[in-house]
């Protein structure tokens, strides 16, 4: 399995996979969003604002999952030193930032009609702000370091330590403020699940966001590998 993480092999197998992933992601997103926006009823309590859920929930889920993916990639890099995993973590961070921003923004907009304010220091919202800061620091550290392997090592350690502190922050924030935000209700077995009319298009959207994330990370990883190859070739040329 690990040989697929060799840069050359990776470039090979991702070339055909990439357009398909993008195509599927586009399809799912188009179907899910159009279905959700045009063909679902308004909620009796929230009115048309339920439609925000099709953006808000998938983005929020992927914002967290992107960080988890970076954590796993960092661990693999530290243990097995496969360059592609480190570069994939680097490639995923800006995508994660965008998802975080979407979750924050749609959540904020949703807050105005629901809670009467764009921003409240609710634990869930606050945790996301902290997650955003972690992303910023992680990206800034990558950008600041000249040597790519040093950068990979340092950002990996930061990602691991940061994850621990992110979890601690989550508990701290809960301790600090009880909050307004809705609990998780997407679990498949619970009775009080969202009504099916909302649930199916939401599921399609979630799949779309996941595929979009994968496609973007693959594409950006390919770019990072090429950039790294340029760097290596130029260094060698200068040496000659």
């Amino acid at each position, binding site marked *: 399995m690990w040989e697929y993480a060799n840069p050359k092999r990776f470039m090979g197998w991702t070339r055909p996979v990439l357009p398909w992933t993008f195509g599927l992601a586009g399809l799912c997103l188009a179907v899910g969003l159009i279905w959700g926006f045009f063909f679902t009823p308004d909620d009796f309590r929230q009115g048309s604002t339920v439609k925000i859920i099709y*953006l808000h929930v998938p983005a929020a889920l992927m914002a967290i999952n992107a960080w988890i993916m970076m954590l796993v990639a960092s661990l693999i890099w530290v243990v097995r030193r496969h360059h592609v995993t480190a570069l994939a973590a680097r490639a995923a961070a800006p995508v994660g930032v965008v998802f975080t921003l979407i979750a924050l923004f749609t959540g904020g907009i949703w807050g105005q009609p629901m809670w009467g304010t764009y921003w409240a220091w609710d634990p869930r919202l606050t945790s996301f702000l902290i997650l955003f800061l972690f992303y910023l620091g992680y990206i800034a550290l990558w950008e600041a370091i000249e040597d790519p392997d040093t950068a990979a090592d340092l950002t990996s350690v930061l990602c691991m330590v940061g994850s621990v502190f992110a979890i601690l922050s989550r508990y701290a924030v809960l301790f600090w403020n009880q909050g307004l935000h809705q609990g998780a209700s997407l679990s498949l077995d619970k009775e009080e699940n969202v009504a099916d009319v909302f649930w199916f298009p939401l599921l399609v959207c979630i799949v779309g966001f996941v595929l979009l994330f994968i496609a973007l990370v693959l594409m950006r990883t390919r770019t990072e590998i090429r950039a790294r190859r340029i760097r290596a070739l130029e260094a060698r040329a200068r040496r000659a």
Partner: protein
Amino acid sequence: MPDLGQYAVEVLAAYGVSILLLSAIIAISWRRYVRVRAALEAVEKNG
């Protein structure tokens, strides 16, 4: 176009901004993808 009622601005803004942000990250990634690919081809040809 469905009737969005009193929250039309909010809902449309949420969709607008989200789609804008997604397009932005896709566009930026794509532009860099193309540029780096071209740069690599140039380097490989010369080297």
